[in-house]
Each structure stands twice: as structure tokens, then as C-alpha cells.
């Protein structure tokens, strides 16, 4: 799978799931489309509007992206904002798992945040483990995503994977 898009934001280390989508909304709003309007609201009020204006954008982040709560609404609202991929130095465990479960491609790539600016155009080769910065003209490598996780993405998430394979065996 190859993903190509412009970088919408470069986010700091330890961006947590409360910042991605506040707990004050997730209990009232079950419709992800309506919930997504509040994505990053407290720290970046124009995020939703900018993301919707630039569908297919990529997010770049520092270490431990998605730490905190297990709320799966976090990767789901980012998907709903038409984010095509998140590249971070590292991800928190539950966010990492949730993203594959909902079919949102994410990539761990050491050194990425030092090499990317907002609006750079990136080409991400998920199978080959390469990120090309087309704006700045260089390439970074990452450890390819394990086969099982790639299968989840190709199926469109854990539920369609399980439906197709009839369970875990």
C-alpha cells in the first residue's frame, strides 16, 4: 500500500487521547461524524476545518502519540477527519492497536519529526518500509508493519478480518 499526502500538522511528544477527543463529548455523542467536529478542539481549534479542507492529509508526531485513555474514538475521529496516515516516533500501545482495528494506517519511524515540516508532501510505502519526503527530497526507512497487522489493514479492520476468517483460528 502506498499513501501520498501533505503533512497537516507536526505534533509534539506525548499527544494524548484526551487532547485528540475530549472525554466531555464522547459520552453524549455516539455518532463519530458529529464527534469528529471536536477533534483536537482544546489545543488546536481549527484542526477539523483544516483537515476537512485537505482530505487525505498526513499527521506527523513525536514520541508516545495517543497515550492515555483506551478510547477508540481517538483513531476513529482522525479517520473521520480524512487523515490518511499518522507517522510518529512512537505510539502508545492501545492507540496503536486501536488504529489497526479501525483500519487507520499508522507508521512508527524514528527521526521523522526532525525531518518534516507542515505542508511537506510525503509518500509512504507501507510494504517496503520507506517514507519519501517529496518536498525536501530525502528518504527515511522504518521497520515494516508485521504481516498480521498488514492483514488487518487490508481487511479494513479487525471486525472485517474476523468476519472473513470466521474467528481467530
Amino acid at each position, binding site marked *: 500500500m502506498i499513501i501520498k499526502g501533505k503533512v497537516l500538522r507536526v505534533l509534539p511528544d*506525548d499527544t*494524548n487521547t*484526551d*487532547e485528540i477527543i*475530549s*472525554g*466531555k463529548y*464522547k*459520552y*453524549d*455523542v*455516539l455518532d463519530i461524524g458529529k464527534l469528529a467536529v471536536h477533534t483536537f478542539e*482544546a*489545543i488546536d481549534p481549527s484542526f477539523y476545518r483544516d483537515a476537512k479542507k485537505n482530505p487525505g492529509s498526513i499527521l506527523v508526531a513525536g*514520541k*508516545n502519540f495517543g*497515550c*492515555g*485513555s*483506551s*478510547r*477508540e*474514538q481517538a483513531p476513529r475521529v482522525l479517520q473521520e477527519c480524512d487523515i490518511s496516515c499518522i507517522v510518529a516516533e*512512537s505510539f*502508545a*500501545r*492501545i492507540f496503536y*492497536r*486501536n488504529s489497526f*482495528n*479501525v483500519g487507520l494506517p499508522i507508521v512508527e519511524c524514528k527521526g521523522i519529526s526532525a525531518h518534516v515540516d507542515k505542508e511537506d508532501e510525503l509518500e509512504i510505502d507501507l510494504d517496503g518500509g520507506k517514507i519519501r519526503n517529496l518536498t525536501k527530497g530525502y528518504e527515511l526507512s522504518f521497520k515494516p508493519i*508485521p504481516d*498480521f497487522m498488514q492483514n488487518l489493514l487490508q481487511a479494513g*479492520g*479487525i*471486525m*472485517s478480518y*474476523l*468476519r472473513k476468517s470466521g*474467528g*481467530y*483460528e
Partner: protein
Amino acid sequence: MGKTMAEKILSRKCGRDVEPGELVVCEVDMTFAHDGTMPLAIQQMKSELGTTKVFDSSKVAGFCDHASPSPSSHISNVHTMMREFARENCIDFYENGDGICHQIVLERYAAPYKVIVGADSHTCTHGVVGAFATGMGSTDVGAIMVYGKTWFKVPESMKIEVDGELGEWVTSKDLFLSVVGDIKADGATYMSMEFLGKCIDDMEVEQRATLTNMAIEAGAKLGLCKADEKVEKFLTEYGREDEFEELYPDDDAEYLTEIFIDAQDIEPMIAYPHRVDNVAPAYEFKGMHIDQVCIGSCTNGRLSDLEIAAQILDGEEVCKDTRLVVYPASRSVFIKAVGRGIIEKLLEAGAAVCAPGCGFCIGRTVALGDGEKALSTQNRNFKGRMGNENAEIYLSSVPTAAASALYGEIVDPREVL
């Protein structure tokens, strides 16, 4: 090669020796979700798998705890949907006021060698009795509710060995805050954090549970303590002594990282806004006015926590410029606290004692005002967490919180008590 506690549990579950890094599929002994995560799990089961039937009613539970008693009509409708699901499936369902999922799971379900998956990040709490317990998202838990299984990456393990004794008014909360301040919020990512050493051996299960509860704040997948005689005593207290079994790491277990701490070096600590790993000793914040003090949560809302708060507040009055709210972690904790006169002391000191639940921690049932500062015994201080992004949250132990409520400002409990 010896095994860590996490490796021992998964090896038994898989019927073979498993190694860190490998992916395994195994059966789940207990799974649960709450009002923040269960609606999405049910929705996913229905729309993606075409079923709302759980694999085994005795192994699934639901909880109204994060927004309960319901503060809005929307949430009441969410609770109604959960009740219908629970009724159809004959699963255990915990209502408004029954308490926080993690306290109830600890009292009624968690046991050594059980694999427990909850749709809440603080599910790692249950490693305190030797369970392999971890948090996942709603979809993962929805899939477990249908298939009774899930996949795991066998985690690497980190040993936190604590020797010596904690000083007066210093608690396991201070110990964890000090650890996360050192290793930071991603210091144990994907690992099993195993708490060992004499200081941990001396603690009761309730104090140890603060450590395993907060393991996620360092990124860990699990927080584990030995299943020893203290765990046996705890299970016996809840009529579940037959579920006890010893669990220890092997002497030659291989830990990826080992941290050694002398408990005497630990001081009362504060985590300041807006990160749990922003940590400094309480005396550095001396004199900082606090608008609201909160005692409760899955981290520090247990009987021994309320008992120590009552001991500090007994015969005293909360500062008139500060509110104190107290949330017992469960109905059982609340009843025992009433029976021992703890609640009376808290009420007489001026506390608002509320129904068991955890809505205050995420700003669902109590919210802070603009520019306000809260000192809470909960586990997270992220921006906006208590319902207002223009407020500040400081985290501390129960003694620091209770003593600070008396003065209306952050104090080091050792200096004033």
C-alpha cells in the same frame, strides 16, 4: 530460562512456553466495558459481526460508572441501551452507584492467572492479584465478547524493585509518581511492569493496586504484583479464597529493564499540569491555592484511602475557600466506610460525599470552572480532563490531598500533620 510473571501466565494459557515479542491468540477469562466504551462495542458487534450475543454470559460484565448517576438525557439513553444488552445476554450489570469497574472487578472477578481484558486503559489494575489484565479499545472488546479470544504480543518485562520502608505520610502513589517522573510517560511502553521487593511485600493489596493501576501512565501493558499471602487475604475477605493460587517470577527471570528504589528516598509528590510525568516534591508547590480537592477514583478511592482521609480530617474543617469532594470507589467500600464512621468524619469536616463512580475524574459528573485549580488523587491530569481546558489539575496521594484541603493550598503532609 526463567520467566517473568507475565510470561508465566501467558505460557500456561497457551499450553507452551511463550517468548517476548511473539504474537499469540488465547482465551479471555473475563471481559468488560463501561458507559464510555460499551456503546461502541455493542454497535460494532451488531453492525460488523451481525450479532449482539456474547460468547459466555458468566465472563462478560457492563458498568455504568463514568457518567453515573446520569447527568444528561443523552447519557440516560446510552445507559438504557446498555441495560437492554445486559438483559438480553444475562450478563452481570452494575448500575448507578455500584461503583467503578476496576474496584468491582477487583472485588468480584480478578484472580491469579486469569486473563482479563477491559475496554478501559486502567484495566492493568487487576495485575495486583496476579491477573494478566490489560485495556483495549471498544472494537477489540466487542470481538472478545463474541469470540471469547484475542491476540496478544507477549510483552517484555520491567522490574521495579523497591526495598526499605516508605516514610510517614508517604504512600504508594508517591512511589509511582516518582517512578513515572524518572522513566517518563513512555518509559514502559508495551511492557509488563512488575513491582517487587520488600516494600511491596509489606503493602496491602489496596496500596499495591495504586501502582498497578498507574502502570499505563508509563505506557505499560500490564502492572503486576506477586500473588502472595496478602492477595490470599484479600480474596478471602471477598469470599473468593478458592480462586487463590501463588504467582511469583522465577529467580532467573529475564527483565529487559531493572529499576532499584530505596523507599526511604521517596517524598510526597505532585504531578503538575498537564502531564502525569511532570513530577516534583509537594513542598515545591507550598502555598499554591487549590479550589477543589477530589479524593476517589480507581487509583485512590478504596477503604484504606478514605480511612486515612478521615483520620486527617477528623475534628477539623476544610478551608472555606476550598471544596472537598469524595467518591468511594464502590458500594462495598461506601458501606464499610459508613460502618466505620469514616463517612461521618468526612461529612463533618465539610466534604461532599458522592455516589460511587468515576465521573469526576473525566469531568462528566463534576466539572471545574475557568482558571480553577484542582488537587486530585486520580491518575491523569491531561488538559481538559476534568471538564474544562481552562483549568489545572494537580495529582497527589490521599494524605497530601486531605492535608491540603485543610489549608486550602498544597502542603507537604509531613510538615503539617
